[in-house]
């Protein structure tokens, strides 16, 4: 089963970002909850080539206070 290691960086917020292992690859438009805040993924890039079942992504997010139902509930 593939694992997607994702580096989340937040623009326009003091949130420190996060590194998480996900079951699905991130994509632009995803809504994620990090702690008490909800963010929208606005950019995704492959950070490093995949090795074995592991894939490496970076996702840039922005604050999205209007979103109510996150696709992923993260810390």
């Amino acid at each position, binding site marked *: 089963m593939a694992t997607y290691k994702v580096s989340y960086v937040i623009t326009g917020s003091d949130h420190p970002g996060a590194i998480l*292992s996900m079951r699905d690859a991130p994509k632009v438009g995803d809504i994620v909850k990090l702690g008490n805040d909800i963010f929208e993924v606005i950019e995704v890039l492959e950070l490093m080539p995949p090795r074995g079942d592991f894939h490496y992504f970076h996702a840039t997010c922005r604050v999205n206070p209007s979103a109510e139902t996150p696709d992923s509930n993260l810390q």
Partner: protein
Amino acid sequence: MDLHNLLQDVEIFNGLTETELAVISQICQERLVNSGETITKQGEPGGEMYIITEGFVQVSIGSGSKERILVNLGAGQIFGEMALVDKGPRSATVKAIANQTVVQVIRADDFDRTCNQNTHIGFIVMRNLASDISFKLRHRNLSETR
């Protein structure tokens, strides 16, 4: 989910055989950590590496008004690995930020002995540790330029 299955989803063990994963599981010790509890403190000696199997931790440097939060890490991520590689003091403070955070602890002595006894385990884990440090550095670089 048992420890063996959990370890299969941890990047630093990517490439190990089932038998080798069983060897690793024998040197893991589970620790339950509550939210707010400090696991490692910057500047202190470090003789253990940690694998997060449930919950979240916060990585920070400095203290008091000079504290700077660097990143949050979730399940499947590791921390404390630098002390195993360079034997230096802890480079950051790590505390749990979710209740019922579960970490697997690997002592440096057990880690070194296992890598020496089975050089395939040693090669795979060290290669993956380098990859993990590289990923964190790339994350840090992107965070700095946001």
